[in-house]
């Protein structure tokens, strides 16, 4: 009898796609702690991305440019609408806003060094401007955030541009939290709060609410800075057509549009993964809004959220962006999540490439921490050199593709240079499915 039973083929254990091991682990973690998971970074779920687009190189109908002989320009001018002193960058890849507090002082210095060496700008973050950052950044964009931590008119006047942050792709509609363990004496002093307490960043500005108010706020900032520097408006990707329209009507010089793959220093995982639009889904509506207003290329569009390669840069620009911004990729270039720290990542219960508990201040790479011993592991000069190299590679890659498409400037890339690999990407971008001249929503 026993032998007969063991001879019956058994059903193999099947893991539920809905209740997968990671999902179940999160349920158990929530049940044990009673609190949601907080982490850094952007959306980790797979969403349609630049990988779902391909370039159509030149052939008979279009001729390419010679890779090592013919120029492909990369410069970009930002803030030409109202500012007396627009920002001129050598490359269309900027460094996104990341705060001193979330990042160490040396890490901010390295961002400034690398960006300046590559001929581009870097950006402050919540918590204000540090002298190191200003000193090492040839072009520095000053973020004007809801918390106004560290915000003062002296630093405002030192900035090469002002970026009013309405939202960011990782958490559109959400604020932030810098946990007490990262509040060193210096961070506390800059933010006018006691050391060691959680510092909450509000989700909306304290002295304006709607687009009509925003227009007046922009007027005030221009009056204070003498109409000299560009004013950017940063929005998280949710309703890009309407938000871009309102940003232009409020008087922005530049719109910074951040998709859901864009990172944050810390927020709820449920927020990062479930709120906002994939970056490629944001670009077409924003460009359409600018075109409908007759402002495309007059109000510049910077796209961010998951930019990793020169191909991503070129694809964003072909869709109509004037420039892109990188945050997560810049941190990786500095050394974040480097496998050389694998033993220490494992001690923290994670592995290199997956480490995202930046809010805890225990970063083995010494970048997202205020711990003096960990910070000492990071060399800002070497970090700056690595970032410069990476920015140059991004530029070279984008130029390579642009030349293959017959373009003598990255800005000459156009949607007609692209095709979509998937129906989803075609629908989101309005770029025809590969091998067709059709995308979902387009009539036959």
């Amino acid at each position: 009898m026993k032998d007969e039973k063991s001879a019956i083929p058994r059903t193999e254990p099947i893991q539920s796609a809905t209740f997968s091991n990671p999902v179940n682990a999160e349920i158990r973690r929530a049940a044990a702690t009673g609190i949601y998971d907080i982490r850094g970074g952007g959306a980790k779920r797979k969403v349609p991305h630049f990988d779902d687009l391909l370039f159509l190189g030149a052939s008979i109908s279009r001729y390419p440019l010679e890779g090592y002989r013919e120029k492909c320009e990369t410069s970009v001018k930002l803030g030409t609408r109202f500012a007396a002193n627009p920002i001129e960058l050598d490359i269309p890849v900027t460094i996104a806003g990341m705060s001193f507090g979330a990042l160490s002082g040396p890490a901010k210095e390295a961002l400034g060094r690398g960006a300046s060496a590559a001929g581009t700008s870097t950006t402050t973050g919540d918590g204000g401007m540090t002298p190191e950052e200003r000193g090492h950044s040839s072009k520095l964009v000053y973020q004007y955030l809801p918390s106004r931590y560290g915000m003062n008119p002296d630093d405002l006047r030192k900035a090469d541009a002002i970026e009013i942050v309405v939202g960011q792709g990782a958490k559109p509609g959400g604020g932030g939290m810098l946990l007490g363990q990262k509040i060193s004496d210096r961070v506390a002093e800059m933010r006018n709060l006691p050391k060691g307490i959680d510092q909450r960043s509000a989700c909306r500005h304290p002295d304006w609410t709607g687009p009509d108010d925003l227009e007046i706020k922009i007027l005030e900032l221009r009056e204070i800075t003498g109409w000299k520097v560009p004013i950017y408006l940063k929005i998280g990707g949710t309703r890009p057509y309407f938000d871009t329209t309102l940003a232009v009507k409020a008087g922005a010089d530049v719109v910074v549009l951040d998709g859901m793959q864009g990172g944050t220093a810390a927020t709820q995982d449920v927020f990062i993964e479930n709120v906002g639009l994939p970056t490629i889904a944001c670009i077409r509506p924003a460009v359409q809004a600018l075109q409908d207003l007759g402002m495309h290329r007059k109000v510049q569009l910077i796209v961010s959220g998951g930019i990793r390669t020169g191909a991503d840069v070129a694809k964003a620009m072909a869709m109509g962006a004037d420039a892109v911004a990188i945050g997560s990729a810049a941190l990786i270039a500095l050394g974040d999540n480097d496998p050389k720290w694998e033993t220490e990542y494992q001690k923290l219960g994670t592995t290199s490439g997956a480490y995202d508990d930046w809010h805890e201040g225990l970063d083995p790479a010494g970048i997202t921490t205020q711990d003096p011993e960990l910070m000492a592991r990071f060399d800002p000069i070497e970090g700056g050199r690595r970032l410069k190299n990476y920015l140059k590679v991004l530029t070279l890659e984008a130029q390579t593709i642009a030349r293959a498409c017959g373009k003598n400037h990255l800005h000459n890339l156009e949607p007609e240079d692209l095709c979509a690999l998937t129906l989803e990407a075609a629908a989101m971008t309005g770029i025809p499915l590969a091998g067709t001249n059709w995308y979902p929503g387009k009539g036959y």
Partner: protein
Amino acid sequence: MQTFDLEQNDLRTLNATLHAQKTNTNQTAWNIINPRGSHAIAVGLDAPIEVTVNGSTGYYCAGMNQQATVNVKGSVGPGVAENMMSGTVIIDGDASQYAGATGHGGLLVIKGNASSRCGISMKGIDIVVHGNIGHMSAFMAQSGTLVVCGDAGEALGDSLYEAQLFVRGSVKSLGADCIEKEMRPEHLAHLTELLTQAGSDAKPEEFTRYGSARQLYNFDVDNAGAY
């Protein structure tokens, strides 16, 4: 006394003229006439000059003020003296929302009433309101002092950090983590000084002090209902 007529000249010229006083401070007294509710009047000043605005203003009057004394002979729109760093701003009439928002220093005096969110996220500024203030005032206020000679609206001091609040009249309700606190001699002395500076004859001992219970300083799931 220099007179600047906003009916004859534009806002840009006004602010540029006042900003230029930083290097040319022999013209220390300015009289602005016909403000007609304009926004962003006398913003970003950074010199020890005295500016009188004869009439009511729109948004952000005296925003980010440093060193200057600005006196509005009328009422002001939202965000008066927002992010002020130093100096003195005196409003003879009423103030709309967000008065003194995120201010880091200096003294803001409102001789009438102030609307909602007065002193929101204040970071060191002192604000004295002779009349009443609206709801959600001193929300997430970090440091500095808010003195209210009249009544306060709902949710006073919600999510308060280290700012000190003094109210003479009634408080409709306190916000999360804001509690009544003992008035000690040092508080009475500080309050007396502010009332004197603000030209108020209210008696310090008639006020009640409020401050943070400091229960929400570090996230605790047991306090989730308070957020």
